[in-house]
């Protein structure tokens, strides 16, 4: 099981960075340019690991990225990769959807811990924005998750996944899917909900003071976490995957939509994004919940 978990993390790391590279390339194509090589994100993170670190804000600051990393990895371990396979399941038989939803909140908390100790006003503002936005993000997602749990009479991700053999939840419960998907776009940190690290407004938000190795950890964390979120969406709404190829195909479709939406929309302000999230996706998900 240990090896299995390690493989999951390694796969998520590779896919996460590959997808990040793809994100940069696809965006570049939309911009009308070639963009960097696919491996550029790897180079970036390795270079960041090789940088000297000349700043010191105390151990609390460094614990932040590490807690974020732990949050991302544990979230990942409780989500099975494949439908009905014995491999790449990690700890998923011991946990359920409720636990995963809980673990997903660890990221902003780790961020908050790190930022609290460096006292950068932009970081504080960024993390306040992040926590405010989280309220908006969680509502529709939780409602959609509750809807699925009621429909399947189970909170186990594996059960929800296998129950979709007749039709994906995305088609049987379309309203829940739309609600959860909009919230998922926000979780991915793309426009129009990228208020947390908006460089033109709050510099780069929580990452303002992260440098060198810790920025590299934060990058790896976001890569792994993005993949975990993609995985969760595929498992919950697109019926999971029988093989790795299918998994890549399904996650890629979701990912592509997220990238394109992120590219063509402008950023909301914090208040606007929370208002939008509370009104539109939550409303849709609530109506969906009624149909369940």
């Amino acid at each position, binding site marked *: 099981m240990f090896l299995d978990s390690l493989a999951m993390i390694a796969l998520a790391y590779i896919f996460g960075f590959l997808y990040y590279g793809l994100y*940069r390339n696809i965006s*570049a194509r939309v*911009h*009308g*340019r*070639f*963009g*960097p*090589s696919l491996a*550029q994100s790897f*180079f*970036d993170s*390795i*270079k*960041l690991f*090789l*940088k*000297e*670190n*000349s*700043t*010191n*804000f105390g151990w609390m600051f460094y614990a932040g990225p590490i807690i974020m990393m732990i949050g991302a990895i544990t979230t990942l371990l409780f989500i099975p990769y494949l439908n009905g396979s014995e491999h790449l399941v990690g700890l998923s038989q011991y946990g359920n959807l409720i636990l995963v939803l809980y673990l997903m909140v660890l990221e902003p908390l780790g961020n908050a811990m790190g930022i609290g100790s460096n006292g950068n006003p932009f970081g504080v503002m960024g993390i306040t924005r992040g926590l405010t936005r989280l309220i908006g993000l969680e509502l529709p997602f939780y409602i959609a998750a509750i809807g699925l749990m009621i429909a399947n009479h189970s909170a186990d991700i594996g059960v929800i996944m296998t129950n979709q053999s007749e039709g994906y939840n995305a088609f049987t419960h379309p309203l829940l899917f739309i609600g959860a998907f909009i919230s998922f776009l926000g979780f991915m940190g793309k426009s129009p909900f990228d208020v947390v690290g908006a*460089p033109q407004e709050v*510099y*780069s938000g929580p*990452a*303002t*003071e*992260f*440098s*060198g190795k810790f*920025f590299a950890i934060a990058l790896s964390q976001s890569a792994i976490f993005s993949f975990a979120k993609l995985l969760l969406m595929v498992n919950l709404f697109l019926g999971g995957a029988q093989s790795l190829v299918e998994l890549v195909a399904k996650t890629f479709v979701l990912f592509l939509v997220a990238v394109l939406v992120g590219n063509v929309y402008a950023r909301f302000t914090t208040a606007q994004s929370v208002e939008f999230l509370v009104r539109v996706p939550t409303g849709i998900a609530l109506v969906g919940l009624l149909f369940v």
Partner: protein
Amino acid sequence: MPENTQEGFIDQQKVLDNEEYSIKNTQSIIQKAVDWFRARSMFVLAYGTGCGAIEMPPIFTSRYDIERLGVVGVATPRQADILIVSGYCSYKTLKRVIRSYEQMNEPKYVIGLGSCTINGGMYWDSYNTIKKLDEYLPVDMYINGCMPRPEALIEGFVKLQDNIRNAKSEAGYIQYRENNAFYRANQEKIFGKNTTPTFEENFAGMNQ
């Protein structure tokens, strides 16, 4: 003195180059790999200090797209590797530039963009701009022009990457660390008492 023509002048420079730096060209494989990564990925601090900033949008956007070479812009000095001093630097800006530079983590490099960073440029008799950037900050690459073309800026990046990869010259940040007294004295000369905290003070403050 060699013949007063362009060719003679360049030949003389070439001789100087080879003698000085051929010794340093022996580096271990690990160091080579490290340098390769450093050259392959460069984060540029988003700070348009002067008029040269007008040519930064074209190179970061679709016409010249410098992201092909692994160069991207970042917002904060903590994550940046490269500081572009784009053109002339007034007193007020220089102070902020030095502050930004000292906040950056090593290894870090400075690119001086435009003639003004070399010898004053157009503003050589202005009372509010500095004339030689390398008195205050170690400069790793100068790009000539007023305004330099975007191609020249890319050429500067390519040459800097080449320098880093092959360890052709001593990186500026090492000079800044070792000859800090020299740079410090020059900075104090124009700022007087109102200088930024010293290199040591800067880090002492952070280590509390």
